[in-house]
């Protein structure tokens, strides 16, 4: 997607348990929080592992590959930061490692988006502090 030029793009606060996620995206490699004991991944980050209840956590690099699990095409009313690019796509991507992310596809015409489409990470900066984990289509 084109960089947003309108002011006030919604952004993460870069605080708390989520901060490492966004720091890793900005560095170009997607990381997902995992249990320090049993290794189960979870997203969004949480203080405990739902499988073993450990509070040990670490951030694991993931492949950035996945598939389109669902998609929509957004028309007004939308957030003001997105007003100039309607209609735009929004997707849910399932990473091959399992976790799901809400995101957008870059460089895919709206009428070519399909559930099951293989995708890979396409990190897009929105400014010096924040980059978003978007995705691009890859060959099956």
């Amino acid at each position: 997607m084109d960089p947003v030029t309108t002011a006030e793009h919604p952004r993460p606060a870069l605080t708390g348990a989520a901060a490492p996620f966004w720091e890793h995206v900005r560095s170009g490699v997607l990381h997902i929080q995992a249990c320090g004991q049993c290794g189960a991944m979870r997203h969004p980050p949480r203080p405990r592992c739902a499988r073993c209840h450990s509070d040990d956590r670490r951030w694991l690099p993931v492949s950035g590959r996945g598939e389109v699990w669902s998609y929509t095409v957004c028309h007004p009313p939308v957030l003001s930061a997105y007003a100039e690019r309607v209609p735009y796509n929004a997707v849910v991507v399932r990473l091959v490692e399992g976790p799901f992310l809400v995101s957008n596809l870059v460089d895919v015409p709206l009428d070519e988006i399909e559930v099951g489409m293989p995708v890979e990470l396409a990190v897009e900066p929105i400014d010096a502090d924040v980059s978003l984990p978007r995705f691009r289509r890859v060959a099956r």
Partner: protein
Amino acid sequence: MTAAVLAQPDAAIVGIGQTRFAKNMGRDELDLACEAVLAACADAGLDAREIDGVVSYHVEQVDEIDLGSTLGLDRLRFMARTPSGGGGAASVIGLAAAALEAGAADCVVAFRARNRSKTASYGEGINQGGRPWAKAGTVLADSRQWHHPFGVAAPAQEMALIARRHMAVFGTLAEHFGAQAVAQRFHASRNPAALMRTEVTIEDWAASRPIADPIRLFDCSLEHDAGVAIVLTRRDRARDLARRPVRVLAHGQCDGPIHVDLPTFFAETALFGERVAGARLLAPDLWGAAGVQADDVDVAMVFDHFTMAVPLSLEQYGFCDLGEGGPFVASGATRWPDGSLPVNTHGGSNGEAFLHGLNHLPEAVRQLRGESTSQVADAQVAFVCGSITDPAGAVVLGRD
């Protein structure tokens, strides 16, 4: 089980009340709640001061104590709220019934009041006036940071992503949701209290503007001002009041992920057959407790923030097989008078009003009293459920 337990008094709905449903009424939520509560008490034929329990949704703006002080409710001894917004639609009745069954209260009111007209905001709360996503701010520390930066902020967009998955897994069509929109607008056209009195066709639905594919404007719930209240008491006491009581045959809550956190939603949902959880786990217990089955239900009020929720809910509670909700709706099954299971006969949230589903409860009561504007002949059993995209619950109601 002892006879004493079997003889435990159960709960009945004895009064329903509502304000006018309209945009820009210029009245705050407390004002609307008071009118609805007093109307429900008048319907029941009891003094509001007899209320000793108050239940509502966690998104409710009216504080229980404010309501009590305004109406002189000086014997409140049970107060509780349900988790999630529309998920609580039926659960508030379950909370009230549980309080009555436990002896924690004798007379409980469930209420919801909203002031959501775009030009009449009485407060700066996220759930007051205008569109919540327009008030979200742009620096997000909570779960909105996983949605808003990608332009996903409106409930329609979140529900579109859930609906699209259902379409991909089961072959459901947008037109199936449209069929429910059209049926509800027909029901609304017959209901003088409804906001939308004009009947629409499937062609009108298809011509209504896209909001978030596959959701169109006519699939969406309405935004306006309103208050609704429902009064319950024990069944033995209910017989002495003004109106024929409606029994709470069974009630139950269920957990489940919520649409405002879609990464967790898709990891944990049972909507697409991944597992038996949430409403599908509740359903057999609910029917068992009610002593009836889905086939015995005469009329259903299904939470419908967007019409896609109707077929998905009907699948989870066993009115049709998993994946068959779309064709079931499109067959006309949910349309009064000829459908086998008329759904949202008051017009639902796209036709009558949107109060996180609490306006669906009075319609179930009217059906069991024989007073609906789209009356199902000799309706004996009604089903009401909360949002399928939230932690939710359901109640089964019956004529006493």
